[in-house]
């Protein structure tokens, strides 16, 4: 069975992204994601290891630009970048990896809705649920910091699983892959 036959549907607008450029695009997307985590982990190091007060623990960027870290623009923008990235790169994933990638997309879709609610409240000054600060739906049961750390984690976990399965596929999945991430089947075939 040819690879082309395994991917019915013909040419799509995002095939160039999910074909020869999929590895580059995935790497670029993951640099953004890992940079975001690096900021959170740096904050954690500042709080628990260096003993800084929480309001002063702003990661790396936040030391130079304190307003940036707490800006609703930044939080909403990152949620949107995540949503678009997960959607744009999904066609490169096949088999089990695609399923996990779509799980991450589904959770991020809701996470984005929550941030959109916060952003709209921050911009309009109209706060929902009778609160005096911008409040998202699940913030009614969990504090904001813990909630969004939880959201980011439950999006990141299936993403990591999808990437592992994508870059370490089994033979059947490797044969379905049409992107630049596909392992060399000829080399793999010679492996005992």
């Amino acid at each position, binding site marked *: 069975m040819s690879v082309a036959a395994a991917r019915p*549907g013909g040419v*799509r607008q995002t095939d160039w992204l999910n074909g020869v450029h999929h590895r580059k695009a*995935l790497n670029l997307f*993951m640099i953004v994601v*890992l940079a975001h*985590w*690096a900021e*959170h*982990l740096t904050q*954690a190091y500042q*709080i*628990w290891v260096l003993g800084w007060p*929480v*309001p002063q*623990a702003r990661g790396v960027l936040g030391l130079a630009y*304190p*307003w*940036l870290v*707490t800006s*609703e*623009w*930044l939080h909403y923008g990152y949620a*949107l970048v995540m*949503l*678009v990235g997960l*959607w744009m790169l999904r066609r490169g994933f096949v088999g089990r990896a695609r399923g996990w990638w779509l799980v991450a997309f589904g959770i991020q879709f809701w996470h984005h809705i929550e941030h*959109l609610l916060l*952003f709209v*409240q*921050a*911009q*309009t*000054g109209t706060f929902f649920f009778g609160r*005096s*600060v*911008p409040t998202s739906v699940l913030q009614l049961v969990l*504090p*904001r*910091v*813990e909630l969004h*750390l939880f959201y*980011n*984690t439950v999006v*990141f976990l299936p993403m*990591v699983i999808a*990437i*592992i399965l*994508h*870059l*370490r*596929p*089994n*033979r*059947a999945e*490797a044969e379905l892959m049409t992107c630049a*991430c596909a*392992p060399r*089947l000829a080399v*793999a075939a010679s*492996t005992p």
Partner: protein
Amino acid sequence: MTAPAQPRPKDGSRWFGYLVAAVVCGVVALAAVTDQPTTRVAGVTPADGSTVAGPPAEVAVIFDGVVRAREFHLSVEPAGQGRSVAAGPAKLEERRLVLPVSVTTAGAYLAAYHVLLTDGRELTGVIRFTVAAGGPPVPAAADLPPAGAGGHQHGADDPLSLGLLVLDLLLVVVVAMVLLRRPRIRAGRHRG
């Protein structure tokens, strides 16, 4: 003979693209039409450095405009004792941040406030005031609310946050290792 039909993107892909574009346009338009003048502290009560004849019922920070805050904190305690005299949670009204207090003894007091605005900027400050001896009677200690109400609280040192961050650190390391290595077919899990 007719030419084969040109494959078209799935309706779902196109629909999602339009949806994202509409959300982005809406967010930009919302940001353009909403005006957020910079809010400043216009005053505090009791005034900083003042001596009041009797125990105040509340401590308030007054702003020069309507406050759009993401987080806010206000705590009051006797100078050098670290024991909150809050009689309830801090409340953010349109132009005031208010903390009801139960002051039982004369002496010097410190109030600290921290307001995180939705544009990412912060308003912080400390108010020092003295309650003179010989004022009106104060409530008995048994009537006081639990200490700490309305204090400065951030969710960063709880087990959930710590556990999530440890998991995230592990995932970051794993995915970075996978991304840095050449893709290959997973050995020993061959199916079909």
